[in-house]
């Protein structure tokens, strides 16, 4: 039961990340009916902006000391704003001229932008993944140290965040590998192979904790807080501001809103900005600080998965995207834990197809009736 809850919590943090990306997909689709395939690349772009802010202005290094709250905060905000402006620029140059050309052409342009950003990323920052600067120490709450009898392994390597330990269970001694960031990962064979060369490491290197109860890490907490703040802010903007009212109007009837004097171009640009802002923050927070690695292709899979989440929750609906992200992340982690970690991608896409076939409008989406 404890394990189950831990898996669930882990799934929720993964789900928060999906939700942060999915929101942007959903908002843009709601306004101009465009599947912005470049959204995953916005996530990547944001992560790199955060990386450069931390490295250049705050002297962040991979194995360095904890950085100040100011560093953390400004990395997130600058990443968000920069990504937002990039999205507005791309919308202006690529998507706006194609707005009347049909959805398939716009989809194609989005695929082109995504390809361009991946290629440009590989040529500028390099194709290899980089280690994100250390921002804060992951800690789990509550925690207690493992007794010496249970332990015969150590921390894999300096800077590596996996913990390896052995535990006595009903089945005998079991080797467990724990990624501090992601408690609840069942060990797969690929990881177990690494244990052999790790276990010979001197015990003095070992930093070992055991988690007898349901635990939450401060990183997970931070992600959850960011998601809640984002959701609340989006709700406030959409429901209570002039801009939000304009957004809802444009989403409801694009041409009608234009006829009523709403500056449609500004609303679309603003929507892109907000969606990309959230994706950029998500990239720095999740891709960078949580997973600890940034690379030019890092947006591809999260982008696709987040899209699935958006469709799952009902594309065009912001609460739907949040709910879809959380559900998708949770179910993916549960499949990894109790099913097979190898097939979690197949599982995600199977959900997508099932949802599309059974209920194309998603969980919270309004079913659309076609005009004849």
């Amino acid at each position: 039961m404890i394990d189950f809850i831990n898996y669930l919590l882990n799934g929720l943090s993964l789900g928060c990340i999906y939700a942060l990306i999915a929101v942007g997909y959903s908002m843009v689709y709601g306004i101009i009916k465009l599947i912005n395939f470049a959204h995953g690349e916005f996530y990547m772009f944001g992560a790199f902006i955060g990386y450069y802010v931390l490295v250049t202005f705050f002297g962040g290094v991979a194995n360095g000391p904890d950085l100040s709250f100011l560093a953390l905060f400004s990395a997130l905000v600058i990443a968000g704003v920069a990504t937002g402006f990039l999205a507005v620029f791309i919308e202006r140059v690529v998507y706006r001229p194609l707005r009347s050309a049909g959805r398939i052409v716009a989809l194609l342009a989005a695929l082109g932008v995504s390809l361009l950003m991946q290629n440009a990323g590989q040529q500028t920052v390099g194709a290899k993944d980089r280690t994100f600067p250390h921002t804060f120490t992951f800690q789990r709450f509550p925690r207690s140290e493992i007794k010496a009898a249970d332990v015969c392994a150590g921390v894999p390597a300096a800077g590596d965040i996996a913990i390896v330990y052995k535990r006595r269970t009903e089945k005998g001694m079991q080797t467990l590998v724990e990624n501090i960031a992601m408690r609840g990962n069942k060990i797969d064979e690929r990881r177990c192979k690494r244990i052999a060369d790790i276990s010979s490491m001197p015990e003095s290197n070992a930093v070992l904790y055991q988690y007898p109860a349901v635990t939450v890490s401060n990183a997970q907490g931070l992600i959850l807080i960011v998601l809640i703040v984002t959701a609340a802010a989006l709700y406030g903007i959409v429901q209570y501001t002039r801009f939000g009212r304009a957004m809802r109007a444009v989403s409801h009837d694009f041409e009608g809103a234009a006829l009523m004097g709403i500056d449609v171009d500004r609303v679309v640009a603003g929507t892109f900005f907000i969606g990309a802002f959230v994706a950029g923050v998500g990239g720095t927070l999740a891709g960078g600080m949580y997973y600890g690695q940034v690379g030019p292709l890092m947006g591809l899979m999260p982008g696709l998965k987040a899209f699935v989440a958006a469709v799952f929750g009902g594309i065009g609906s912001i609460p739907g995207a949040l709910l879809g992200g959380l559900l998708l992340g949770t179910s993916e982690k549960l499949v990894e834990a109790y099913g097979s970690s190898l097939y979690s991608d197949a599982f995600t896409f199977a959900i997508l197809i099932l949802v599309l076939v059974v209920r194309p409008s998603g969980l919270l989406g309004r079913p659309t009736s076609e005009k004849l």
Partner: protein
Amino acid sequence: MGDFDRAISFWGHHIIMVCVWLTLTLSLNLINGFCGLFSLGHQGFWAVGAYAAAVTVVHFPGGGWPALLLSFPVAIGAAAFFGFLVGLPCLRLKGDYLAIATLGFSEILRNLIQNSETLGQSLGMSFPNIIRLSVSERRSFYLIYIALALIVVFATLLILRNLIHSAHGRAIQAIRDDDRVAELLGVNLTRYKVLVFVTGAAFAGLAGALFANYNAQVTPDDFSFNVGVLMVVMVVLGGMGSFTGTIVATTLLYFVPILLSLWLPQTLVPVFYDPTQGGVVYRELKELWQVLFSLLLIGVVLVRPRGIMGGRELRWPWRKAVAPGGSHGCPRN
């Protein structure tokens, strides 16, 4: 190695690969261009065909020529079967929902292949190249295979063209233009959509067998999402519903990157300022071809959103214009 040999292994390779791509894009055009079903999962059917051919060549008792000959129908059959599997549940979907569902199918397929022991997981399968082993010279292998590839492309073109110009073809295009009217006029939507999916997938399977037997190696990365995107780009830029447009666009988009990487000078250009890489980053212009290619792609989409040919067919100037196979303009969406 003589000049001729060198030329034929360079250009021969590209001619064969263009033929593989043409078979793929022509059949994708049947689904996307002529029937208006937007599929983003053609690479999945291609993968099914290639792996089916690979399994046949490896496991058929005796191997050799019988295995090679058998691998083509097996690949076509397997891909057609998957086309049926995918087509049936996706019939309810339209537009970009269908695109996403087909993309999902191909990703599921890739995930399953990557985890299958028999299919060699991420490393893929390597197997003997039967034609290469049975001829003594490199050049005869290429000549034989180029002939085979050209036959495949022409057969594909002929069959698809005849299909489009038949009564079935009219029905297929009617579905694209307005499916409700088509249904009212007695076109069996389910039957024709499944027919289109199965036919398109079958030709993708054929392309898979052609590719696998030439390359003698298949890996899951050959059939990634970006490959599918490139196929769709070729079809859309060629003009949805134009065979000649597809041929022109596929050939162009296949050769432009190669020519870019051949012809671009090795001049160093500054691309980026990166303090972590020690200041300004320089790259050879040659290495930037992918970036230029994607810029070019966006440019073409912006300048000619309806494709290079926009639904028209290129025809011989001395032939009289007959009723066009494709309708004019882009399908509505």
